[in-house]
């Protein structure tokens, strides 16, 4: 039992050293920990420093309570599993979905919902692309607006209700992560939900659809209609100032 197969003239120095290491369990565990830590530290830590962290842009505002509720429904139903929120900077993507996504647009995204698979189209700039009534019909029966779609219907969103107390809990938690909300009480959150929900309800009524401000479908529509709009506004502003700057150059 003495021959362990490791001895002999062929053995390289590092093999002998490693053989010794194999006899020291704790050291082996520590070295493994070091080996697996380096890559993560090098890549992730800089994300928290100012020079590499997401650019801050005043034009991007936090999600409203109704949009937070809608986003939570989007997460609950696993929408992100088939729809990305991430337009890549290529010509075809910009033609198909609009301006490519900048880092600052994700600023208030907790969790991020960039997605990894496009069973359906990207939703980064779906906000404002279709009327509220379209989204309502699309959730009720996807094939009524999009013939040939493979999306399942989400008819239960029409009747299910958003609980203001639940949304308040979300807002409080999001506030603790550092998002600047000045809403604290359930009554304030409920007022905000009701005000924004009423707007969606009015839009739906214009399409002949009856709904109430506290239904899940209204919250989801509010979230979807919000997607990409802040970013688009900021980007077109930047464009405008850039081209006016170029104009001045030309005048000189």
């Amino acid at each position, binding site marked *: 039992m003495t021959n362990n197969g490791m001895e002999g003239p062929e053995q390289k120095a590092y093999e002998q050293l490693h053989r010794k290491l194999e006899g020291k369990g704790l050291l082996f565990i520590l070295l493994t920990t070091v*080996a697996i830590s380096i890559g993560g530290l090098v890549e992730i830590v800089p994300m928290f420093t100012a020079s590499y962290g997401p650019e801050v842009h005043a034009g991007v505002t936090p999600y409203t309570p109704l949009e937070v509720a809608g986003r939570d429904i989007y997460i609950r139903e696993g929408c992100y599993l088939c729809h990305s929120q991430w337009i890549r900077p290529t010509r075809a993507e910009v033609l198909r979905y609009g301006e490519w996504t900048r880092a600052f647009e*994700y600023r208030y995204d907790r969790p991020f919902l960039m997605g990894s698979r496009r069973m359906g189209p990207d939703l980064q700039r779906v906000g404002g692309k279709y009327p509220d009534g379209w989204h309502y019909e699309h959730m009720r029966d996807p094939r009524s607006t999009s013939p*040939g779609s493979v999306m399942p219907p989400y008819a239960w969103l029409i009747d299910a209700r958003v609980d203001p107390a639940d949304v308040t809990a979300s807002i409080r938690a999001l506030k603790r992560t550092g998002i600047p909300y000045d809403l604290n009480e359930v009554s304030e959150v409920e007022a905000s939900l009701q005000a924004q929900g009423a707007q969606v309800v009015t839009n739906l009524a214009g399409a002949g659809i009856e709904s109430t401000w506290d239904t899940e479908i209204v919250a989801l529509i509010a979230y979807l209609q919000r997607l990409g709009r802040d970013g688009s506004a900021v980007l077109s502003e930047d464009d405008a100032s850039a081209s006016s700057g170029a104009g001045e150059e030309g005048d000189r």
Partner: protein
Amino acid sequence: MTRPLFPPRSPPRGATCTLRTDRPVNQPRYDDKIVKMFLGATILWGAVGMLVGVIIALQIAYWPANLGLPWTTFGRLRPLHTNAVIFAFGGNVLFTGIYYSTQRLLKTRMWSDALSKLHFWGWQLIIVLAAVTLPLGLTQSKEYAELIWPIDVLITIVWVIFGANLFGTIAIRQVKHLYVAIWFYISFVITIAVLHIVNSLAIPATLLRSYPIYSGLTDGLVQWSYGHNAVGFFLTTPFLGLMYYFLPKAAERPVYSYRLSIIHFWGLVFLYIWAGPHHLLYSALPDWAQTVGMIFSIMLLAPSWGGMLNGLLTLKGAWERLRTDPVLKFMVVAISFYGMSTFEGPMMSIRSVNGLAHFTNWVIGHVHSGALGWVGMISFGMIYWLIPRLYQKELWNAKWATYHFWLATIGIVLYTLSMWMAGLMEGLQWRAIDQQTGLLQYPAFLDIVNRLMPYYWIRVVGGTLYLVGMVMLAINYVKTIRGPETAAAAVPSPAPAD
């Protein structure tokens, strides 16, 4: 004649060992009951997880299969499928193999039977909680880390229990040197703990909901460092550990090269972590991070293929047994798929290739060539080797093991080929620009979706074949353990680490 780069050594590594001299050596009595418990759980959850996989594959080909109920839609069942096959099937199979081999490699019973039991029941509780919460839509949305925060806390506790038990066993070992399989188990315990904790840090809003402490792209980078390394350190390194124990056992050959195992172990554990950002190529993540992720992903090819070669070359001199031994059939195909997917992965991490492949079915095909091909097949090989030895009974139907092998192999081929074709097709059509007009050549997204239907159906067939094989294994297992003792079975009692 030149000397081979990695000369084989004999006698086989692991066939002999140095016992510790600092304490009296006892004849160990191994805890095989815990191994049997994990094995039973593996087979049950494997069948369930793969069944859910077939259902969601069908839902894409035929949307009415979503059944119109909230808890049966694709969006809720897909996380159930991934969690079930990775953590319920994959997890239990790893614990089966680790508890069996660690005791024998270290010539000692597990440090604590109580911790072993807590680990087992804790893990099964997590699985049941996942199976309840995910269909209810309770999710954190991070892929493979969907479970809500109270379950995350439970996972942490159970993981610490497992780690303590494994490290405790290492501490009381009667063998001086740690065999290569143990190195991989160590990397598994440490890395999964780090990844799980870092990625799950969140502020709870209610008992059922929380928001991560990271936002936007930082959250994305943390998640994909987790997501990629869950593949690396849950589905790759510990399974390599199983390969290093069970392949030499099944082939009755020594591991090909000790030197290669040192190099590829440290190469893998160091390089893998860096590769996460390849999931965010062409995003707004800083360019340097994307490039570093890409470069390290490409470098990963070397240690990955090191492992593949060490596995395949271990079979040198045993190749003729492939014709008759289903265990070796499974293992060789597993290692081959490991080689293929670890070639494909680095290739898909090249920025320009990723530009085509990302968001498409190609990625799904890639994942499944690794999951069905590598993880599934090495597990099945190990299980068919273990059953007769654990229960001291001959397999109820050895022919079924061979049928299972062929069903699974054909299933994988149908699955991966259809997804490769579907992925290439949609990737190319999404990006095609009409040279005359400068506009999109296929502007209607839904037309592209509908062109993929034949491939989605082929995938359903492939997945079903794979599931049928799994069910045959389950039946074979139940029939075997319920069957009569085959006294003095043809199967020798497994000698402790020999």
